[in-house]
């Protein structure tokens, strides 16, 4: 629902535009409100810029293609005035975001459950009845967390993450590692989150969120391809991410060293796989060329015969 608020302010193409690689729109500033809470939870918080907590103010500290952010900020002003009728809806979504953000603090103790959300709503000063109105309750909490982490990742990248000296496979490793580290505080309850995401009702949303995440990582790494390769790359990275995430669940090593080693190996495999697919493709083309030539010859013969016949009938 917080995404739909963003969509309304920034136009329909918000989520789809990410996948189509349009210039990154800034999300609704109200989503940033729990930002400072979320960043406190994230272990790797180096280089974060603090955002002022303000409901309707645009965050000036975000380092971003400034043209894009200031133009959307200017657009948001007049648009907010004329859509004052829709304000109640936005208010509900703000409240929901606030409650969910507060609930995250209770998750390590109470799990991804209604109890955590009830505790969160009590903290915010709202009647816990509001939890009853969240669609697919626990899933709302998990999805909120996933979106928050994606946003954090984007912000980390925007605020100058150094990727220049790394080869693509190392870049991918680093980004996946950053993202997975955000889940460390919730690791004890993460299996529950995964099972909630796997529930058939919730699969469409969780799939979409993972797709967005994977797309973001590839985009940051510097991939601009838009052919069939695009799907292959994202699927492969999706697989790498999921397997690493699950490995992490049972990893006891200090600071998850084993997980990062596992991740590096998988990413290397993926890139090697890519190379092997390329080689297989060239091989197939070479063979195909041979077969294709003879097929071409056949087609040419057929065309000539037909044109001769057509020509003669004209007379």
């Amino acid at each position: 629902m917080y995404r739909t608020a963003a969509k309304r302010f920034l136009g329909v193409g918000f989520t789809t535009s990410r996948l189509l690689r349009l210039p990154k729109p800034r999300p609704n500033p109200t989503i940033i409100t729990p930002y400072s809470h979320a960043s406190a939870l994230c272990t790797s918080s180096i280089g974060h810029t603090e955002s002022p907590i303000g409901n309707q103010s645009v965050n000036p500290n975000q380092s971003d293609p400034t043209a894009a952010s200031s133009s959307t900020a200017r657009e948001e002003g007049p648009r907010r005035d004329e859509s004052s009728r829709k304000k109640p809806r936005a208010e509900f979504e703000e409240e929901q975001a606030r409650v969910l953000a507060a609930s995250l603090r209770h998750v390590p103790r109470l799990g991804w459950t209604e109890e955590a959300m009830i505790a969160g709503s009590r903290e915010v000063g709202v009647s816990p009845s509001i939890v009853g109105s969240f669609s697919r309750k626990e899933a709302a909490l998990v999805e909120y967390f996933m979106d928050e982490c994606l946003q954090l990742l984007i912000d980390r990248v925007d605020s100058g993450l150094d990727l220049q000296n790394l080869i693509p496979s190392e870049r991918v490793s680093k980004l996946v590692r950053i993202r997975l580290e955000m889940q460390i505080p919730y690791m004890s309850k993460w299996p529950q989150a995964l099972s909630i995401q796997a529930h058939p009702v919730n699969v469409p949303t969780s799939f979409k969120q993972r797709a967005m995440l994977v797309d973001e990582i590839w985009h940051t790494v510097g991939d601009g391809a838009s052919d069939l390769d695009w799907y292959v790359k994202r699927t492969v990275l999706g697989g790498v991410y999921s397997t690493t995430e699950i490995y992490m669940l049972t990893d006891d090593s200090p600071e998850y060293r084993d997980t990062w080693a596992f991740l590096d190996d998988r990413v290397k495999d993926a890139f090697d796989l890519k190379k092997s697919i390329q080689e297989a493709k060239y091989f197939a083309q070479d063979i195909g060329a041979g077969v294709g030539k003879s097929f071409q010859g056949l087609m040419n013969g057929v065309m000539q015969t037909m044109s001769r016949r057509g020509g003669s009938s004209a007379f």
Partner: protein
Amino acid sequence: MHLTSRADSSLSLVSSSQGTNFAEAMALRSISRRFGSRVLSYRSSSVASLHSHATSFGFQQVKEEEKRKLVGNVFSNVASSYDIMNDVMSGGLHRLWKERLVGKLSPFAGMKHLDVAGGTGDVAFRIFDAVNSVKRRALRKVDEDSLEETQIYVCDINPNMLNVGKQRAAERGLGDNKSLVWVEGDAEALSFDDNSMDGYTIAFGIRNVTHIEKALAEAYRVLKRGGRFLCLELSHVDIPVFKDVYDLYSFKVIPNLGELIAGDRESYQYLVESIRRFPPQEKFATMIADAGFEKVEYENLVGGVVAIHSAIKL
């Protein structure tokens, strides 16, 4: 004036012999005889032509003060057979509808809930059960705050209905339970404090209220911030063929069932007429939004025979 004084005298006769079917039927029959000749002409006039001090009692136009009394009589009359009639008329479906209502509410331990016009306690018992099973499950993760007691208030304007409810509570062994509180009161003028309730439900009751806006305003007043308003009500069906089947069932079958089982045709005639006079789903949703509620939504059950409207106070 002449008519109302006659109606008054017959009603006073009724109130002295409270609860007897014959007296109620007499009263209603006398009123309907007087208004009967006007019913046809009134039926053709739309709600828009209603002048400010008249309201609808089924398809009849009555003075506002009268509606309260007439409704009171209807429910005094039907109280004892209310539950049986519900089962027969809806084929047992009303239980599912109430389950759905309570499911949507998602009751939690420590909740302060108000069920208005819930005389016989159907919704209240379900909420009580839901909270106590939740409490048992969550016992190992109990938050200090939720150790406050759950309070479910059942408010009804009709003492007869409340008595049936108290009886049923006693049968379930909840007679002395502090969580269930039976209160006599009017939906348009609740005796509860502002911002005191986490939840407010009204199941099959808002149709009978004289001023719906007042009831909605009261609901808004007593709810806390974040509190939910849920209304289960018989509503309008728009599906072509099904609508006709439903109309046939309503006007032909239900009053006859009322006569057979509860011995009271007029009350059930009133019931089906009041359903038709109630605003349709969208209009009612607008009324709820006008009272100040947010995130107003409605869900049709059985193609619109029943609708659950929900909203939040923010």
